[in-house]
């Protein structure tokens, strides 16, 4: 098969599969935030990638601070929290100043947030420079472990996966097991009724949007462990994460996870056997093809809108 022995193909599959898993984790974190915002509120946030970049730059800046003051081994946990808080706060502000005026015009939200993303990219470029920067990783994130001599699994990938799992679980708890989640779901299902029973739907919108942005911030922190950050980093993932959300079926948490997994794995494995661009083309084409046959996505909620 392609000039490799069977054992080699097996090892390649494991390693590419694992590379796919790190990509899956970042994609999942990005898509979770988007799924909350798009699935629950119907808002297209084209600036979502830039919220991820906020998280990434926060981590990079904190790592510089950590190097200067010598707490490199511990800062990363703080960085994740700070990235979340910062992205959450900016998301809250954006919802208040921009998004809330546009809920009734989803296509216009798309254009306005695209404008926002351009502005944010230029702010990043002006303040951090056009060059890509990378975070100083703590020692426990470096290196790799080898279950067999031919298989090499990087630790940062494992960490990112763990982080994605924790955040996903957190989102699940928030959406389905908390008072807040109840209010969010009620608002999505019937805004007028939710308002009538005393839920402050505007506040719910604001927190939901900010939460989605906050998760993108965490995605950014995770991103710094596998690649370096530049002003346009966010744009790399935005189309992919939209495809994840649409493909998985908006408003379905499980669908988002499944489709993030499928898309990341397909790209990662195809990229090894074809060129990287053709792998991406093949994956995206497949998704578009499936979406044409099943526009509601893989796991659509049964609610008629």
């Amino acid at each position, binding site marked *: 098969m392609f000039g490799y022995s069977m054992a080699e193909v097996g090892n390649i599959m494991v390693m590419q599969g694992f590379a796919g898993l790190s990509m899956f984790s970042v994609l999942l974190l990005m898509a979770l935030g988007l799924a909350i915002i*798009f699935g629950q509120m*119907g808002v*297209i946030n084209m600036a979502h990638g830039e919220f991820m970049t906020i998280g990434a730059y926060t981590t990079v800046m904190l790592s510089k601070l950590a190097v200067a003051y010598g707490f490199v081994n511990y800062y990363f946990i703080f960085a994740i929290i700070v990235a979340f808080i910062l992205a959450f706060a900016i998301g809250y502000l954006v919802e208040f100043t*921009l998004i809330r*005026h*546009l*809920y*009734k*015009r*989803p*296509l*216009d*939200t*798309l*254009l*306005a947030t*695209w*404008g*926002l*993303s*351009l*502005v*944010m*990219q*230029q702010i990043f*470029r*002006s303040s951090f420079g056009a060059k890509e920067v990378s975070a100083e990783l703590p020692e426990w994130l470096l290196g790799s472990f080898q279950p067999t001599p031919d298989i090499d699994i990087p630790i940062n990938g494992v960490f990112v996966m763990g982080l994605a799992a924790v955040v996903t679980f957190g989102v699940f708890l928030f959406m389905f097991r908390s008072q807040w989640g109840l209010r969010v779901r009620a608002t999505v299902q019937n805004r007028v009724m939710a308002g009538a029973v005393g839920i402050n739907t505007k506040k719910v919108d604001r927190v939901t949007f900010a939460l989605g942005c906050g998760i993108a911030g965490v995605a950014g922190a995770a991103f710094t462990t596998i690649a370096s950050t530049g002003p346009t980093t966010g744009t790399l993932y935005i*189309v992919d994460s*939209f*495809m994840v959300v*649409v493909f998985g079926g908006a408003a379905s948490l499980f669908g988002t996870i499944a489709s993030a997994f499928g898309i990341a794995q397909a790209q990662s494995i195809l990229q090894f056997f074809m*060129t990287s*661009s*053709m792998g*991406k*083309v093949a994956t*995206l*084409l497949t*998704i*578009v093809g499936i*979406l*044409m*046959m099943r*526009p509601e996505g893989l796991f659509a909620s049964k609610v008629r809108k």
Partner: protein
Amino acid sequence: MKTLSDKLLGGKQGVLGLALLALLILVILPLGLDIFRLNLVGKYLTYAFVALSLVLLWGNGGILSLGQGMFFGLGGYCMAMFLKLEASDPISTKIQTTPGIPDFMDWNQLTALPWFWEPFKSLPLTILAILIVPTIFAYIIGFAMFKRRVGGVYFAIITQAIALILSILIVGQQGYTGGVNGITDLKTMLGWDIRTDSAKYILYYVNALLLFGCIFLSRYILTSKFGMLLLAMRDKEERVRFSGYDVSDFKIFTFCVAAMISAIGGAMFTLQVGFMSPSFVGIVPSIEMVIFAAVGGRMSLIGAVYGTLLVNYGKTVFSETYPELWLFLMGGLFIAVVMFFPDGLAGIYQKHARKIPFLKRWVAEEKQKQTDAHASHGKVGTKLGAEA
């Protein structure tokens, strides 16, 4: 009954608007600008085709395509392939390993012309391809999506993904498409050198006339019963469907017309600028072209042309002197247009023209003539957005 000329010109106000635009494009700009600047304006006017198609599709049809760049690109590439084949005749490419094929193919170790390049040896077939290929492409996308009632933001996202796929494909398949550099070094068309000043003047006028042709075509569509249905579909799709119309067919048709208009713009772009590259196909150009239409006024055909000229003029001025400021301005423009001027320049004109004595008459008359479908579009449109 409206006469044909009424339909094409759009009443008194339409005539005034068209006459002013014609004066600007056909007389004032060619007289006032040197050929370099005029060529630049010609380039902007090719984007106006796309803005025009978006007025048809998005402003009146409520279908936001974020992939109009791919039709622009397809039209442009068809034209570029023809010109490239003419520029790579066996004599001028005799230093290559395989003479007679475009240089980038030779660099990528291709030894024969790929089959899909063959039709582009003839000009009539090329012109046919410019008009037909993007339309068929649009038909396939439109058929698959609209028949299954995919619309609104889903349609926007999927067209965006398709534009991305196409641009990655063009960049990736370097040997067949020229890769990231695109198709360059275009010289002659049937032996006629397109790089001379006189050729540039002629191409500018051909482009301008084609643009007016497309405006007439779009206006004809919009003022016909079809245009009314399009508006009705945008505002109350279910009602139109329940009245017995096949909504998806209308949408597919509009999408195809929009694709064809964009493709004509793309072909004229290649002729005037002398190259075509994937940077006009992907996500960023596609969405930028939406802002041209939005600035001009998403409902106004003539506004789209002004919007395109204005935004591009701003882009040229600012990106030459303050490149950093430009992205802020562009981003701010997106936000401001959406938040404060949803009807763009045309909306501002409609609002303020009444106060100017000379213009008052025209606007007042026009206001009366407008049927309820036209007049109340803004309000109904916003209400419906939430339901769609």
